[in-house]
């Protein structure tokens, strides 16, 4: 099953299928290791529900929901 990273609930994990988004945001996502093929776990959400925190490539990354919506992820 595929869905956007922004739709993940806490504790779910998945593998990235595709990354979309405008140039600057997309580049930044790639540089931080959010690339097709990478696996991740949704760790937590900020007290107000946004941004979210994921574990990817062995470290903790935080990004906003709008940015997480750029990643299409296959649920594992």
């Amino acid at each position: 099953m595929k869905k956007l990273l922004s739709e993940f609930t806490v504790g779910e994990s998945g593998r990235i299928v595709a990354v979309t988004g405008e140039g600057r945001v997309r580049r930044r996502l790639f540089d931080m290791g959010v690339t097709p093929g990478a696996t991740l776990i949704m760790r937590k959400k900020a007290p107000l529900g946004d941004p979210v925190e994921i574990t990817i490539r062995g470290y903790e990354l935080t990004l906003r929901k709008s940015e997480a919506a750029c990643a299409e992820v296959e649920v594992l």
Partner: protein
Amino acid sequence: MKTFALAGNPNCGKTTLFNALTGSTAHVGNWPGVTVDKREGVYRGGEKPVKIVDLPGIYSLSPYTPEEVVSRNFILDGQPDGIINIVDATNLERNLYLTTQLLETDVPVVIALNMMDEVDKAGDRIDAQALEAALGVPVVPVSALKGKGIKQLMDRAAALPETRKGVTVLQDEFRSEIAAARAYYEKEGVSSPLFHAVKLLENDEIERERKGAKEAVAQLNADLEAEIADRRYGYISSNLASVKVSAKRQTLTKSDKIDRVLTHRIWSIPIFIVVLFAVFHLTFSENLFFLNGFTEGQGWMPTLEELGYGDGFGARLLACFYDGAVFSPGVMLTNLLNLVLDYIGGGVSALIGVCGGAAWVDSLVCDAILGGIFAVLGFLPQILFLFLGFSVMEDTGYMARIAFVLDRIFRRFGLSGRAFMPMIMGFGCSLPAMINTRTLSDENERTATIRVIPFFSCGAKLPILTAMAGGILAVFGVGNVDLITLSMYLAGIVIAVCAVLLMRNTTMRGEAPPFIMELPAYRLPAFKNVLLHLWDKAKHFVKKAFTIIFASTVIIWVLQSFSWRWEFLLQDAQQLFEADPVKWQSLAEIEGLVNVQTDKSILGSLGAFVQPLFTPLGFGAQLGKSFGWVFAVAAITGLVAKENVIATLGALAAVVAGAYIDWEADEVATAVAMIEGTGITIPAILAFIVFNMTTIPCFAACATAKAELPKGKFRWTLLFWVVTSYLSAAAIYTLGSWWWTLFIWLAVVGAAVALIALRNTGKFDILKIFKKRSKK
């Protein structure tokens, strides 16, 4: 001398390694054109001294942040003899991503594998030799924190060959594409052709703008960006398998456990408020342990006077630490410094007396110059203490969590969660707050934040609030001092929020900057780093105090002390007292010169000249010609330091009420004298407070803003401060005086909002219409 560049991710121990390498030789400057720290130093541990340039922490060599651009330019065009690439061994995968890009340049590279001790502690093993074999460049395990492996690292760096041929991990997959792009750069005669070629394939903005570059790869599948990034990581993880042996992980690391509490859904914000309170309390409180109860004026601890201490050195020294309550460390240091400065001032004054200097020389040197510089220097301990608190929060990784927790709120205003810290620091002092905006990645966000920082009323503005609020209560018998003070603070915040919203919708339009950020593992801060950091700040601050403050205090002193006919207006306090003890009884205890005829001074007549301008704010023409200018003059002297506003009013009381008032002894009496003497109304007093809070801040803050803002923005920032303060004060005065003006203000604000909204949706652009008309 050979030059090595130090490159690596943020939070990988780069600063610690830099400090360990260069020690006290380091000095901090700016990279040209951007407000990114440039640190340089010399390593003297080897045969020959080596220059080390610390590049900013980066994750990649993409051209999207100033940090990345600066690093890229230095590596490619700065002609370093080598790159020391520091890699956090606890997070090899992401750290090596940058390494794969560095290896594509023709610059020799040596890798410093940092935090190996933490890897060992976790039970993992990393084979440095296998990594060296895989990457083809020297790899040296080091511990920057403990200073281990540094000699070996620098020995291998010194032994690096003069040049290196760039290699890429992408060779297998994209051989033909890279060859095509590379051929173009080689024909152009560019150095590091491989690096440029790969960047071009990655759709890099800088490379695509190069003439003929797009055409060179036009026939290729242009968008390889995702594939290349994936391939880099793929290469790293397949190589890691042979290099890193992981022990079985516990389910929760220490960092996770701390995080569970500090970013808890409910508790995170209360915990943060407590931490913030603690930092401010340790810095500014004069009642550290609440021994005197929680509010002022209910103390049961004896003051030194009650304990029978005299006025000797011992008593003064003791009073730095305790006087009716135990002070906070920040206040203790401030008191100690001021005690020393006081003795220096006294010494200089005595010296002038011995040398037979005139009284005006004493006044100029001691009261104006030293007084001005000391007033600013006196803040240094508290500023540094505030810095210390925030550096520790930054270095432990807590600051990143605060940004995480608060981002949602700040995004509404077009800022990121990171902007919160500088703003809250503004309540202490604008200077460290403005410097702290360097943690913001987006230039617009930084500019907007610097502009509104002064609205977060700083410590020096507090006397204006309390004195005026006390004056209102004493003269009109209405209100509550704490309530008025608090609501004025809130007014400042509201104005700041409105101003940010306005800027982000007009002059600084654009998306909120991306918030894709690492949450680093919690670490204990390296105290050597923190102290070196503080030392840098202190140096900057002292330099500023001695240049801009020096100049501005002299100018204001001259304007205040001389009339247009160049008569010297200051008079000896004791002589005045002896001539008329009834009128000047307040001068009985004051030594030296006082100014009881500011009305005759240049500044006084300037004040009278600009007075009508303040009519819409309530302290202009309606106060009459005789005393109406005093508030304008007070606001002008406030530019040197905001304490001067009330101090000047105290001196002006000599003109208005016929009694000189030492504001430090009784600030409320100062306000009362001015209110009764001038007949100013309550709305006008409130307008005066708000005007002083939001107008141009003190000169020291202006100098900092100029240094921290992008080029050319400072002039507009000054204008912004003047306009904001004028409009806010005018709104408060008119609304307070005539309630029906509410409808006028609402209509104006509504029209402005509507016009901006229409413009931003592109439906109706009034500016364009004007431009078209003027063209016709």
